[in-house]
C-alpha cells in the first residue's frame, strides 16, 4: 500500500526507534548464519538502509519486525555469493571471530582459543540450532519472546532449545573443549 511519505525528520525519528528496538534481533539472525560479528554488523546496517529506502517510497510496512528479519535472513544468505565472501578475509583484529580490543595476557589467549573452538563446533550445528541458541544466549530472550520471533509455540521452543544445547554439549565434549579459564 502506497501513501505520501511523512516529513524527513519524522521518518528519521521512526527509523531510529525501529533501529533501537530491533537491531539486536537483526544482528543475531545474521550472526547465527555466519558466526561472524563483522558480517552480522554489515548485514544489520544494510537491512536498515533498505528499510529506510522502502519507507522513502511511501510503501507502508505493516509489520516492520517481520520485514526486517526476513530481509536480514535474505541478505545473510546472499552474503555467501558476494565478492567479499569469496575473496576477502577477516581483519587481524577479528581472527577466529574473536575481537581483540584489549591487551592479550595468557588468560585472554586461552579464552580466545576456547571461543574459537566453540565457534567451530557451532558452525557444524544445524542453522536452526544456531539461531535458537543465539536468540537465547546473545539476546537473553525468554521462551515466549523466541516463540513470537520464530512464529512457533513455547513447547516447540523448549524442545528445540533443549536439543540444540544437548547437541552442542555432546560435540564440545567430543572435541575436548573445556570450560572457560
Amino acid at each position: 500500500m502506497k501513501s505520501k511519505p511523512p516529513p524527513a525528520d519524522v521518518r528519521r525519528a521512526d527509523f531510529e526507534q525501529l533501529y533501537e528496538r530491533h537491531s539486536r534481533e537483526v544482528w543475531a539472525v545474521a550472526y547465527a548464519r555466519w558466526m561472524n560479528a563483522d558480517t552480522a554488523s554489515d548485514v544489520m546496517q544494510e537491512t536498515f538502509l533498505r528499510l529506510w529506502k522502502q519507507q522513502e517510497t511511501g510503501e507502508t510496512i505493516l509489520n516492520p519486525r517481520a520485514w526486517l528479519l526476513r530481509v536480514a535472513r535474505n541478505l545473510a544468505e546472499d552474503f555467501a555469493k558476494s565478492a567479499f565472501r569469496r575473496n576477502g578475509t577477516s581483519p587481524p583484529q577479528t581472527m577466529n571471530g574473536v575481537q581483540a580490543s584489549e591487551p592479550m595476557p595468557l588468560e585472554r589467549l586461552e579464552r580466545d582459543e576456547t571461543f574459537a573452538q566453540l565457534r567451530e563446533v557451532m558452525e557444524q550445528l544445524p542453522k536452526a540450532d544456531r539461531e535458537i541458541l543465539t536468540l537465547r544466549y546473545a539476546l537473553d530472550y525468554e521462551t515466549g519472546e523466541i516463540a513470537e520471533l520464530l512464529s512457533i509455540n513455547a513447547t516447540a521452543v523448549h524442545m528445540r532449545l533443549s536439543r540444540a544445547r544437548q547437541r552442542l554439549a555432546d560435540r564440545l565434549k567430543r572435541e575436548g573443549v573445556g570450560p572457560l579459564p
Partner: protein
Amino acid sequence: MRSVVPLSQNRGDNVDGLLRAFYRAQMPHPWPKPPETSSQTLPFRRFSRGQGATRSRWVLAASVAFLLAGSLLLPRRFTSQERPEPGIEALGTANRNILPDAPKMKTNEGKPVEKKQLPGLGFDEGELLPDLDDTGLFPPK
C-alpha cells in the same frame, strides 16, 4: 512469567556459561549507531527533480540533432569523391586485368630473375649431376 529452559545439571551450566561469555564477547561494544540516511538521499532527489532534469533533456536534444546532421552530411561527402566507374563494380577487383584500360599487374620484366633454391636439395637440378659412364651397360648396335 520467566519460563527459562531447565538446565541439565553440571554440563548444562558449563555450556550456558560458555555460551553467554562467548556471545558477550562477540556482540559489538558500543552498539553501532543507525546508518546515516538523510545526507545520502536529499541531494540526489534535489538533483533529479530540478536543474538536472532540464540539463539532461538539453543534452539529449543536442545528441539527437548531432546524429541527424551526421547521417545527412556524411553520405553526401563520400559519394561525391569516391564514386567508382560504372560497369567495374559488377566484375569485382579480381577481373580488373582483363579490361583494356585497367592498370596492369606488376611483372618482373627487365629484371634478372633470381634462382630460387629448392628446399632440401641444396643444388639446381641438372647443373651438378655427374656424367655417368654407360659403356658396357647396353649391347652394341
